[in-house]
C-alpha cells in the first residue's frame, strides 16, 4: 500500500485514537475542518453538539462518570471562546477534559484574521495547561502530554490551539510516549511519618470526623475510607462533589455538610475534636465563617495538590499524595477507636433534625427528588444544574457509588446538568442517567435535546420548574426583604411542547399523586431521551441553610420567622 504522509489534522485524530478516545464532542467551523475531515475515516464517533458550551459539559460528564478524559473539538474565535465556561467548570472541579481548537493560519496569528481570537491568552486562567501548536512535528508529543497532564495528579482541562496550516499541512512525526515536562510531577504515596502521626492523632481523638471530597472520588478512595471509618468507628460527611465515594446509605454516613448540608452533618462538624479532610479543599461553602470553623479540632488534610495546604485552613498534619494510597497505608496503623458516645450523639442529632419538607400545599421538589431516589435506588447516574434543585437533589438523592453524582460545584455553572447527562449516558450505555435541572439552567443548554435525540441517548431530563431562579428568589426573600429582582422567569416556554418539538418524549407532573407513575415511566423509557417537567410550588426554600459567611453553628434549620441580616461571605 502506498504510504501517504498524513496531514496534521489526521495525525491529531490518530493520536486521539491511540489515547483510546471513543467519542469527540464538537462543532465544526473553518479552522477546525482538517480535524473534522480526518474524523470521516476514524472509528471515533463524533457527537455534533448545538453549542460549544454543551460540548465541554458533555465531555465533562463523560470524564466524571468514567475517569477517562473527555474530548472536545471546536473551531477558532467564537467556537473556542464558547468553551470558556466549560473549561472553568472542569478546572474548578478537577475534571480531565482535552479541548482542541482550530485557529487561524500561523502567518495570520495576531493580525485580526477572520474568526481569530487569542485563545491561549483568553483561557490561561481556566486551564491546567495549554498549547499553541507552532510546528506539526510536535503534534504527537503535545497530544501525549495533554492527556497525561489532564488525567494525572489533580486532573484538569488542557487546551490545544491548532492553526489551520498545521492541521492542513503534512505531519510525518512518529507517535511518541516521551514527555517533556520537567516541571510536572505526580504525587503518589504519602509520607510515612506523617501517616504515622495521623494514625496517632486519630487514635487519640474522641470525636473524629472524616470529611470526604471530590479528590476521594477521583482517586477511587471510597472503599479504603469506608474501611477506615469502620475501623475507627468514625462518622463520615461528604461535600457536594464527594457524594458517592462512601455509600451515603452507610450507617456511619451523616450526608452532605456545608451551606445546605444536613443539620446532623453540620452539628458533627461543629462538635468534632478531629476533622480529617480527604481530597477536599475546605471551600467557603463548607467552612462558613473561618474564624469559628472547628477552632478546637485537630485538622488533618490529605490532598494531591500541595497548593491546597494552608490555602484556607492551616492543617496540623498535611499529607501530600493520592487519597487512596494514603488511606490504604493508614489503615493498618489504626486501632479500633472508642467513639461510642460520639456516635450516639451523632445518631441523636440525626433523629432530632432529620431532613423534612411539608407534605401538603402542592407539588414539592423535595417530594419529586425523594421519589426519584426511591425509584432509581441510588444506582442511577444523576447530574444536576445549579440552584435549589441541586441542593434538594444532593439532600434526597443519596449516592451509593463512585462517579454516579455529577454536579457543577466550584464554578456553579448553570446549564451543566443536561449536556453532562448526555456525555455520561454515551459513556455508560448500560446505565440509567438522570439530569435534574431547574427551569433557568435548562434553558441555557436546552438545544442539546437535539444532540441527545440524534444519538438516541436515553438520558432523562427532570426539570424542576418553579418559574423562578429559585435560589436567587430564596436569598431575596430571606436577606433582601423579598425585593425580587431579576429572579422571576416569566415567559418560560411549555417545556413539554418544547421537548416534543425536538421529537423528544415528554411528560408533565402536576400532582404529588402522579410522581411515582411518571418517574417510573421515564425510568423505563429506553428508546431515546425523555423529559419530565415537574411543575412544583413556586415559592419554596432550601433548608437547612448556613448563610454565606456565618458560622456552622448559626445554621438555620427551619424557615425563620423574622428578617435575617445580609450575608457577609463569598456570594
Amino acid at each position, binding site marked *: 500500500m502506498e504510504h501517504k504522509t498524513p496531514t496534521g489534522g489526521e495525525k491529531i485524530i490518530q493520536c486521539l485514537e491511540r489515547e483510546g478516545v471513543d467519542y469527540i464532542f464538537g462543532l465544526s467551523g473553518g479552522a477546525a475542518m482538517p480535524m473534522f475531515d480526518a474524523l470521516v475515516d476514524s472509528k471515533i464517533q463524533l457527537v455534533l453538539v448545538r453549542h460549544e458550551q454543551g460540548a465541554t459539559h458533555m465531555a465533562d460528564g463523560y470524564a466524571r462518570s468514567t475517569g477517562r478524559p473527555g474530548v472536545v473539538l471546536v473551531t477558532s474565535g467564537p467556537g473556542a471562546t464558547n468553551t470558556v465556561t466549560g473549561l472553568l467548570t472542569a478546572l474548578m472541579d478537577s475534571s480531565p477534559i482535552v479541548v482542541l481548537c482550530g485557529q487561524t493560519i500561523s502567518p495570520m496569528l495576531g493580525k485580526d484574521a477572520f474568526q481569530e481570537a487569542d485563545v491561549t491568552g483568553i483561557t*490561561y486562567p481556566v486551564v491546567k495547561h495549554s498549547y499553541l501548536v507552532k510546528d506539526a512535528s510536535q503534534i504527537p508529543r503535545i497530544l501525549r502530554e495533554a492527556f497525561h*497532564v489532564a488525567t494525572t495528579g489533580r486532573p484538569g482541562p488542557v487546551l490545544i490551539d491548532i492553526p489551520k496550516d498545521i492541521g492542513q499541512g503534512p505531519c510525518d512525526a512518529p507517535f511518541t510516549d516521551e514527555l517533556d515536562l520537567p516541571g510536572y510531577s505526580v504525587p503518589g504515596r504519602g509520607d510515612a511519618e506523617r501517616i504515622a502521626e495521623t494514625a496517632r492523632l486519630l487514635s487519640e481523638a474522641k470525636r473524629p470526623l472524616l470529611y470526604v471530597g471530590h479528590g476521594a472520588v477521583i482517586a477511587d478512595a471510597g472503599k479504603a475510607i469506608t474501611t477506615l471509618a469502620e475501623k475507627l468507628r468514625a462518622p463520615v460527611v461528604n461535600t457536594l462533589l464527594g457524594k458517592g465515594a462512601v455509600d451515603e446509605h452507610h450507617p456511619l454516613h451523616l450526608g452532605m455538610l456545608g451551606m445546605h448540608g444536613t443539620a446532623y452533618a453540620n452539628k458533627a462538624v461543629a462538635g468534632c475534636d478531629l476533622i480529617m479532610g480527604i481530597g477536599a479543599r475546605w471551600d467557603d461553602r463548607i467552612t462558613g465563617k473561618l474564624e469559628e470553623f472547628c*477552632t478546637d479540632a485537630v485538622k488533618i488534610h490529605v490532598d494531591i495538590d500541595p497548593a491546597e495546604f494552608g490555602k484556607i485552613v*492551616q492543617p496540623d498534619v498535611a499529607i501530600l499524595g493520592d487519597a487512596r494510597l494514603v488511606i490504604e497505608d493508614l489503615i493498618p496503623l489504626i486501632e479500633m477507636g472508642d467513639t461510642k458516645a460520639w456516635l450516639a450523639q451523632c445518631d441523636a442529632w440525626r433523629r432530632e433534625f432529620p431532613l423534612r419538607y411539608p407534605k401538603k400545599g402542592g407539588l414539592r421538589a423535595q417530594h419529586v427528588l425523594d421519589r426519584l431516589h426511591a425509584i432509581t435506588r441510588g444506582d442511577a447516574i444523576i447530574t444536576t444544574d445549579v440552584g435549589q434543585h441541586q441542593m434538594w437533589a444532593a439532600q434526597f438523592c443519596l449516592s451509593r457509588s463512585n462517579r454516579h453524582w455529577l454536579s457543577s460545584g466550584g464554578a456553579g455553572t448553570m446549564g451543566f446538568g443536561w449536556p453532562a447527562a448526555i456525555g455520561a449516558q454515551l459513556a455508560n450505555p448500560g446505565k440509567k442517567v438522570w439530569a435534574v435541572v431547574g427551569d433557568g439552567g435548562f434553558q441555557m443548554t436546552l438545544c442539546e435535546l437535539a444532540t441527545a435525540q440524534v444519538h438516541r441517548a436515553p438520558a432523562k431530563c427532570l426539570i424542576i420548574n418553579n418559574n423562578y431562579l429559585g435560589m436567587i428568589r430564596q436569598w431575596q426573600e430571606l436577606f433582601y426583604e423579598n425585593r425580587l429582582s431579576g429572579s422571576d422567569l416569566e415567559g418560560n416556554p411549555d417545556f413539554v411542547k418544547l421537548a416534543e418539538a425536538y421529537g423528544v418524549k415528554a411528560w408533565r407532573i402536576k400532582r404529588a399523586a402522579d410522581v411515582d407513575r411518571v418517574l417510573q415511566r421515564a425510568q423505563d423509557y429506553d428508546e431515546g431521551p425523555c423529559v419530565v417537567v415537574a411543575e412544583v410550588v413556586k415559592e419554596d426554600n432550601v433548608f437547612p441553610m448556613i448563610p454565606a459567611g456565618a458560622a456552622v453553628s448559626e445554621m438555620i434549620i427551619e424557615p425563620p420567622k423574622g428578617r435575617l441580616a445580609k450575608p457577609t461571605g463569598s456570594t
Partner: protein
Amino acid sequence: MSAAAANPAPMAPLPTHTISVFVNNKPGVLVRVALVFSRRGFNIESLVVSPGAEGRFSRMTITCSGRNQDLEQVVKQLAKLVDVVHAIDHTADQSYEVEIALIKLECSLDARTEVLQIAEHYKARVVDFGAESLVLQAHGSSEKLDALITLLGPMRIVELVRSGKLLMARGRGVT
C-alpha cells in the same frame, strides 16, 4: 488559621519578597506566572527574565510586597504551573543580591563636582559625559541604589533605568 479577607490591613508596610522562578523557556510562560500575581491583586515590583545555564530553561527573579502567608500561597501556586520547574522565596535566606541602575542627570557645571563626589562614594561610574547631562552607572544591593537615588534627589534626574533585583543562593543552595 488564615483568613486573608477577614483580617484588617496592617499599618506597617508589607515586607518585600524576592522569588526566584525556574521555568521552561517557552512562549506564554511569563503570562502564566504574571497571572498568579495579578489574580490576587499583587503588583510585581521588579521582574528579571533571562535564559538559564541550559537554553531550554529561563530564570525569573520577581520582587513583590505582601503578607508572608499570602506570598507563601503565591509560591505554591507558581510551583503548580506545569511550565514552572521550581519556585523559591529567597526573602529569608542570605542570598547574594545585586541590581544595576542607569541614572541620567541634567547637570550644570556648578553641580557637577557634587554629583561626582556622590558617585565616587557609591562607586558609580560616569558612562556618558555630555555638556549639560551625565549618565551614571551604579550597582549594588537594591537598598544601596535606593539611597543613591535619594541622595541625587535634589539634582534633576531626567531618566532612571533599574535592572531589577538579581539574586543567587550562596554555596550549594538552589536559586
